[in-house]
């Protein structure tokens, strides 16, 4: 099995896909670093102060003002209210949720890329894992070896899993290393609040507790990895089902983007919460953001994703071992 996985890793490497992914990240991170740097500068200029409390207070007031506007959508109002009480909480407990520093950047970056950017990167790697063998014809050589089909597919799946881990690690390392040049490398021990739960309009703070930022980041990356793994598994399944890599990418792209759009529209369509693509934003549960649909929670979303992932895994293995190859 190790040999098989090694084979798959070799092919992945030689296809230069991982390299391309790293390049993409290395290109995007400085972009976002600069954007955030500008934002902080701009804020300082506007406020004439470097005191984050003042900035946060100003944000609270802004939120309050937006809340008092009558033309505001219900979902948006709910979101703002939760945001407001959370900001208030940070202020009262004297915690700056956005203290500049590379770890903070890492955290914010990964929170913002969990639902689209990272799944897309994973998709780029996984989409042609099986379909390229089918379209390139090499699958005929692969499957006429004295190795059972499920073992071959499993080796590909494990290679997928490893490359997902690798991508997530690259995101972590690159975002830390690059943003640190601007923001400095400190801030690992900054306390952060987690454990917010949302029930209706209320923000429940019973389970709220403090974790140091490094733990928070590790937890978030664990979730990011989980999301990427599920997206990877589903892409993997499509890659088994379809011969054309372009079709795999198309379908995944469509569903991921549909998810991003749905999240903003589905608050009244409750059963939409069983779609995998509206459940990708796991980090929001850690930071205590409003859920797009009532009744969603970290446990719920992870279970939905797990069900989709397991189903995709089974479909992939059953079709692959039974299918006739022409």
């Amino acid at each position, binding site marked *: 099995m190790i040999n098989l996985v090694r084979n798959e890793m070799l092919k992945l490497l030689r296809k230069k896909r991982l390299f391309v992914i790293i390049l993409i990240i290395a290109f995007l991170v400085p972009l976002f670093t600069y954007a955030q740097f500008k934002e902080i500068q701009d804020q300082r200029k506007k406020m004439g102060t470097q005191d984050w409390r003042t900035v*946060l*207070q100003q944000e609270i007031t802004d939120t309050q003002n937006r809340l*008092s506007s009558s033309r505001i959508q219900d979902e948006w109002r709910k979101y703002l209210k939760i945001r407001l009480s959370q900001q208030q909480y940070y202020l009262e407990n*004297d915690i700056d949720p956005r203290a500049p520093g590379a770890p903070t950047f890492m955290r914010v970056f990964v929170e913002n890329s969990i639902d689209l950017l990272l799944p897309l990167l994973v998709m780029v790697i996984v989409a042609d894992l099986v379909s390229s063998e089918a379209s390139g014809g090499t699958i005929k050589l692969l499957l006429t070896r004295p190795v059972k089909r499920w073992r071959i597919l499993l080796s590909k799946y494990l290679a997928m899993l490893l490359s997902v881990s690798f991508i997530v690690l690259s995101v972590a390392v690159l975002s830390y290393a690059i943003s640190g040049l601007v923001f400095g490398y400190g801030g690992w021990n900054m306390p952060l609040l987690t454990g917010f739960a949302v029930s209706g309009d209320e923000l429940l703070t019973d389970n709220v507790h403090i974790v140091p930022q490094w733990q928070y980041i590790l937890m978030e990356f664990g*979730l990011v990895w989980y999301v990427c793994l599920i997206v990877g598994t589903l892409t993997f399944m499509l890659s088994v089902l379809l011969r054309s890599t372009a079709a795999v990418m198309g379908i995944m792209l469509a569903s991921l983007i549909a998810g991003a759009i749905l999240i903003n529209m589905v608050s009244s369509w409750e059963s939409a919460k069983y779609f995998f693509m509206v459940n990708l934003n796991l980090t929001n549960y850690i930071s205590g953001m409003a859920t797009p649909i009532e009744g969603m929670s970290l446990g719920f979303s992870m279970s939905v994703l797990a069900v989709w992932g397991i189903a995709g895994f089974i479909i992939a293995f059953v079709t692959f071992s039974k299918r006739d190859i022409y």
Partner: protein
Amino acid sequence: MRKYTLTIVSAVSIAATLLWLFGLGWTFQDQFSSNKKFEQPKEKTESAISKKQDGTLTIFAMGDSLTRGTGDADGKGYTGYLLERLKEKSEQEVNLINTAVKGETSRGLFKQLQQSEIQRQAKQADVIVMTIGGNDLFQQGTTLESLDMNAINSKKQIYLSNVKKIYSQLRDLNKEAVIYHVGLYNPFSNLPDAKTTSSIVRDWNFQTANTAAEFENIVYVPTFDLFQLQVENYLYTDQFHPNKEGYKLMAERVASLINFEQEEKES
């Protein structure tokens, strides 16, 4: 070399897998076990202790939509123009912190004033400007239409007691800063009932000014006269909030009252 890349990437990937699995496991343990107790961070960071920024004049603005600047196309409001004026007048750095909330009533303002951060800001301020009462009285224009004197009187009593509480709290927090309470105008002074509405607003302003007089260094700034004539030229399209020109008038009036040298000496 090529061989090594494969080994290194594979080894790193395996290590990463374990790391992320660990992170995921920790998330489970952290998020799904509920026996955690929130501990208040013991140490407050030193910057939490209020400190005034030397050499800068800090204006703390609070209150309702007038302070927020609703109706001004540029979104500055009278506080924004006030800031501009003060900057012209003096070499000194001027800072503005605006915590006004649209639709705030006197009760809401008093509640807001209980927040620690608002209190900290109030403490640091050199000048405090505020508008309040408009929403108590007008409530989006409905009160004055009915012209029910009893209802208005009871509202006024509640309002005055709130204002008193606000004043005293501000004075407790900050003994030195001059507080400018910008008064109300009558947005309906070009409507048929102008006489009645104007007298109500005048009375409201008078009572507020009386309350302000009980405290030291609280200046009640009238605006009634500014909007008395040609009110339509100074109102925004909602016929309620001032427009840009109206806000500029208000800013000029407040600016003329702020005496720099005195402020500096006091601070």
